[in-house]
């Protein structure tokens, strides 16, 4: 593995800044392992709920110009069965693993955290922002600073591993929410979840293409929104951020890092460029770093620092 790409995230060494985000190829240990073998520095499990869920009826995905709409609907085998897959992943693979959990109340998040405490998870991610279950659960928790704060605080009081809050782009102002998560003790943030939700219409049959009508948008079209939110949040909070949303190539990943992200999620690109996308992006990042003589990821300038320095230079 390329030494250029090694980095440290909350005290754990990762061989690449690329992260397999929740919901991509992670229904089984072997799906996560194949991403790790192909170059992901860290993998995330499917978002587990207390009980098993079959998710929405199909069609659950629809491709569109620039991205994919999905409404998987949090299908998962439940936390107990899910953590067995994580255990089996750990037996097969040393890559750090984030366990993602979804609930709608502090109490359920606490129960889930107790389960994760007894698992080989390296990190716990709170999915506060699934956009595909509005009908069932209402507006995501990540829309309210107060709720984000109380849930993160509750989970942090018992979690035995670092806690990552996954936030939603679907809110008028993300900054109070990011601050609320940080103040409540979150160790890191992951942004962004899918955008929207959006919809597509089959004009010949006059039906919504997704059975759930609406689905979260991911893919290349997401990147500008993700970059803006990551940049804004990274200017405000001191905890590290996993930047995800629309990354297709090494240049996109560098943009995420410059916006302030410490690690970079790669999800929908698996569909567009195949499972080899992780090694391809690793290679592309390394090529860029060599061109610019960056010896490690920390030397890649953060946009905020760069702009601040320019202002300082002008003043002098």
């Amino acid at each position, binding site marked *: 593995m390329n030494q250029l790409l090694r980095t440290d995230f909350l005290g754990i060494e990762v061989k690449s800044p690329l992260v397999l985000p929740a919901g991509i190829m992670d229904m*089984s*240990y072997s799906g996560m392992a*194949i991403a790790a073998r192909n170059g992901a520095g860290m993998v995330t499990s499917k978002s587990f709920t207390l009980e098993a869920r079959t998710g929405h009826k199909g069609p659950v*995905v629809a491709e569109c110009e620039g991205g994919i709409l*999905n409404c998987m609907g949090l*299908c998962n*085998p439940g936390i107990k069965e899910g953590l067995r897959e994580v255990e*089996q992943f750990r037996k*097969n693979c040393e890559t750090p693993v984030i366990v993602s959990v979804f609930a709608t109340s502090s109490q359920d998040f606490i129960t889930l955290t107790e389960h994760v405490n007894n698992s080989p998870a390296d990190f716990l991610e709170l999915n506060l922002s699934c956009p595909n279950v509005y009908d069932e659960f209402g507006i995501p928790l990540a829309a309210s600073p107060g709720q984000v704060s109380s849930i993160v605080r509750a989970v942090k009081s018992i979690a035995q591993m670092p806690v990552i809050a996954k936030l939603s782009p679907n809110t008028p102002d993300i900054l109070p929410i990011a601050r609320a998560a940080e103040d409540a003790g979150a160790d890191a943030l992951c942004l962004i979840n899918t955008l929207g939700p959006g919809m597509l219409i089959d004009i010949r*049959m006059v039906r919504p293409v997704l059975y759930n009508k609406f689905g979260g948008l991911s893919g290349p079209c997401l990147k500008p929104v993700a970059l803006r939110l990551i940049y804004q949040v990274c200017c405000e909070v001191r905890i590290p951020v996993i930047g995800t949303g629309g990354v297709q190539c090494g240049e996109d990943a560098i943009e995420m890092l410059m916006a302030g992200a410490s690690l970079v999620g790669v999800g929908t690109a698996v569909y567009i460029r195949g499972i080899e996308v992780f090694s391809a992006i690793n290679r592309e990042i390394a090529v860029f770093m060599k061109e610019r003589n960056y010896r490690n990821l920390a030397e890649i300038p953060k946009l905020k620092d760069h702009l601040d320095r320019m202002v300082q230079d002008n003043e002098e």
Partner: protein
Amino acid sequence: MQKSPSLKIILTEWYRIMKSKRLILPINRIVRECRDVNTYFFSHQLEAKPGQFVMVTDYEGGEKPFSLADSTTAEFAITVKRVGQFTSRLFQKKAGEYLALRGPYGSSFFICPHRVLLVGGGYGTPPLYFLTRKLLEAGSEVIVVNGARSGDDLIFCEKFRALEVNYHNITQSGCLDRKGTAVDLARELMNTIKFDFIYAAGPEPMLKALQEIVKDTEYQFLMERYMKCAIGICGSCTMDPLGIRLCVEGPVLSRLQIEQLSEFGHYHRDATGARIYFNNGQGFHD
């Protein structure tokens, strides 16, 4: 920042493929194969290979994968077994009604131009018909074993008989030519004839039994797993421990892959991702 030219090509190609894979087509005609099995024909040139599949929905809840029973320059066909709500709705459709399809997806059979054995079990047989046509075009010597529980469940007999192949029926009830399983007959044939390649499609216990009697011959099996996205991202159909996504790297898998799959013949996953064991056994024992 400028994207590398190669990625621009990848994205442009992706848009083109994405557009071409979405189809809204009327059912051209419906052929009844047996009590609970219909074949649906669509007038469209799909440019598919044997073994590949399409996702089909009526937008009433549910989108399911179906292997192609045939695909020509004029039309393609899927064969549907009535098993649940979704397929029951398909059985109420009439010619002229529309369905939304996407595909073709997945891997296809290798075309071996020598002496080959095809083993079909139950409703797994239809994709082998498409394969047989392509094998004959390539000049292969084709021997087909078509097995089913009873004569009522046996499908595609006439279609195979209309082709230039050495064709055998076998049923567990013994009501037709032979009594036994497709694997029994395959074993007999393999004992007397040297095959260059073996193809099979059918229930997984049948495939597992066949795998156990194949000695040195290369083979490919068409496999089934619960599929949702069909584009390799949701992970529903990954097979342990290789992480093979059956919708992308499958559904046709080769001997080298199958031999490494600990879950083959052992368990599969349901819509939640939970493991379901074929022998109804409990526990998490790989």
